[in-house]
């Protein structure tokens, strides 16, 4: 009964939405509003104005830098939230050690075999993100996946012990902090907060630094999420 009601509501809403979206400019047509207004300006400005040949990176780190700053803050806030809310520190009574499962030799070998390649790929994605497809977040996610895999091999306890230490928090905070520093550098050198200063080599340096910071931040956040879920599971 409840489900039927929900179905009815959903169908009515979907009908309304279809009526709405069918009035949008059809997707894929090159003269839709999306392609004529702001995006066309970005493409016309080219590498010179955007600062990066990969225009997605240019939009992320230059034209719409505040959004990306916000995004970095969201992921940091989520990490802080997960650490603050999770059960892992709430040990009630003596903490019961889970029976540590020995790592399967197959998994161990394969991860050890693949780890260098994954690391290389992640670094490539981060460092070349302003030229080719890729970027800080994408590379950071690969890096984070690698770290999670390694925590499987090495045993999560070794990594989990480091969870709430201040040193780790400095590294976790790296993305918002580097962003804030860049913003201030932009104010000092180019006159506006979040502006990328002029000489091309400096701009590229800043872009790579930002991507690297974002990558590290994203990777550590992923590991933080994984470990707090994993730790809770065993308690």
């Amino acid at each position: 009964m409840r489900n039927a009601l929900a179905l009815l509501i959903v169908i009515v809403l979907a009908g309304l939405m279809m009526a709405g979206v069918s009035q949008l400019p059809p997707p894929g047509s090159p003269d839709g509003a999306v392609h004529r207004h702001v995006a066309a300006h970005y493409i016309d400005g080219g590498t010179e104005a955007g600062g990066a040949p990969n225009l997605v990176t240019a939009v992320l780190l230059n034209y719409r830098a505040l959004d990306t700053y916000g995004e970095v803050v969201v992921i940091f806030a989520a990490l802080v939230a997960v650490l603050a809310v999770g059960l892992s520190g709430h040990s009630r009574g003596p903490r019961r050690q889970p029976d540590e499962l020995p790592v399967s030799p197959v998994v161990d070998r394969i991860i050890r075999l693949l780890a260098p390649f994954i690391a290389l790929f992640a670094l490539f994605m981060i460092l070349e993100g302003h030229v080719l497809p890729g970027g800080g977040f994408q590379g950071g996610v690969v890096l984070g996946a690698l770290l999670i895999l390694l925590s499987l091999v090495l045993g999560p306890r070794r990594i989990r012990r480091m969870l709430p230490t201040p040193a780790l928090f400095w590294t976790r905070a790296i993305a918002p902090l580097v962003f804030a520093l860049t913003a201030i550098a932009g104010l000092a050198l180019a006159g506006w907060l979040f502006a990328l200063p002029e000489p091309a080599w400096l701009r590229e340096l800043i872009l790579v630094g930002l991507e690297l910071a974002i990558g590290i931040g994203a990777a550590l956040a992923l590991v933080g999420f994984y470990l707090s879920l994993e730790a809770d599971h065993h308690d």
Partner: protein
Amino acid sequence: MSELLLTTFAAVLIAAGCLFFLAGTIGLLRLPDFYCRLHATTKCDAVGAVLILLGVALIAGADTQTVRIVALIALIAISSPTAGHALARAGWHAGHRPWTREENDEPE
């Protein structure tokens, strides 16, 4: 003529890969327990994806693309069985016992 043959062969490979994906997905939805579902789904990646990639490589021919596709096939061939193995092992250690027809007629 040989090109037609090649394309046909590639099409067959891709179709077979898709079939494996379909079977794996149906298996994931319909089979009774964790291990059976795992059995079905690991076929998606290990066989289905590899077949599709082989077909694509045949169509691409001798190209730099093909090198990438071969590398991808190697990666999948290594990682997908490992993942399946790790999952099954974790399931066993977490206390899942395989489903048998005699004990419980009702699937989980």
